[in-house]
């Protein structure tokens, strides 16, 4: 029972991956569809996708950092 926090961390990491995967997947799908409709706008679409992509990834990484902190500091 004293390792209950590990169970919480495992659950948290799974949820983080689900959240990040869903969000980034939707971004990628929208970008691919946009490029398919208008191939000449591909540079602009890539530029527009870049920023939210890395912000989302940053959020996921921050979550993982806090999860690691919970494991290490009990």
């Amino acid at each position, binding site marked *: 029972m004293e390792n209950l926090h590990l169970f919480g961390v495992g659950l948290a990491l799974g949820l983080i991956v689900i959240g990040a995967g869903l969000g980034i997947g939707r971004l990628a799908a929208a970008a691919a569809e946009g490029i398919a409709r208008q191939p000449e706008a591909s540079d602009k679409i890539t*530029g527009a996708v870049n920023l939210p992509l890395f912000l989302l990834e940053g959020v996921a990484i921050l979550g993982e950092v806090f999860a690691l902190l919970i494991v290490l500091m009990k």
Partner: protein
Amino acid sequence: MSKAAEQSHTAGGSVLDQVGENIIHHVSNSSLDHPLIQLPHIWGIDLSVSKHVLMLWIVAVLVACSVIIPIRKYLQQDKPQPKGWMNVIEAVVKFIRDSIVQPNVGSKHVDTWAPIILTFFFFILFANGVGLLPIFDILGAFNRFILDIHAPPPGVEDHNFINSLLHGGATVTGNFNVTAGLATITFFAIMVAGSRTHGFINHWKNLAPPGLAWPVYIILIPIEIIGMFVKPFALTMRLAANMTGGHIAILAILSFMAIFADMFHSTVTGISVALFSIPMATAISGLEIIVVLVQAYVFTLLSAVFIGMAINVHH
């Protein structure tokens, strides 16, 4: 490898206990009580040189020799014609200036802000890349197996320069203090950008655009102020966590060999786990190379975006 030297170094405990400590040991700084070069305290700040400070200097020298000095020699020619390595530098500088700095900052201020963005990019790229090279691990293995210098018995800590040099991680951007320093530069750069374009007071007034109903301001201003601090904090944590996380993943996969060998008390199990462990560690190292490039690009891009947001205030 040096892992064997270190496992005879820590006192007792099963392999599982030692592995966790070992991994953290490999990504963090050298021991702060026993730095590489002991320097005096000035006004309460300990100036001693730890492993990461030494790596900062090494990365700085590397960037100077690879980027700064060739650019200076190139600019001193009569008719500058790039050749060889200068072509690469020119391509990178052009890419960053035209697709990162200029769309965000506007063509009027490109020459003002391009240098700091380029500095960020080259420094973070080189710092991340140097962290991937296992120079000190190879030196440790060389020490242990060829020169046959054994680790001292557990309990006796031998803290000379070489020993401290071999312990601790080489990724300087994995230390969140280093990335916090870089993010602080961005924090002040945002304020300087806004103040130079709009005037000092107007920069703060631009946080809350005019023409909104007054209850919105009560929520908007605290959110903007918090956002002002959260953006550099996110920059810090993003870079540090990405770098550390990649290294921890590689080390954890390599530690499977030791863990499985200990769990089943047989060397054959350990060696057969190596057939899985080493290709996987290689694949993740390949992924790490991509992460190195991407994280340098992202830090640079986000700094340029934040500076651009302070200069062109259009929501």
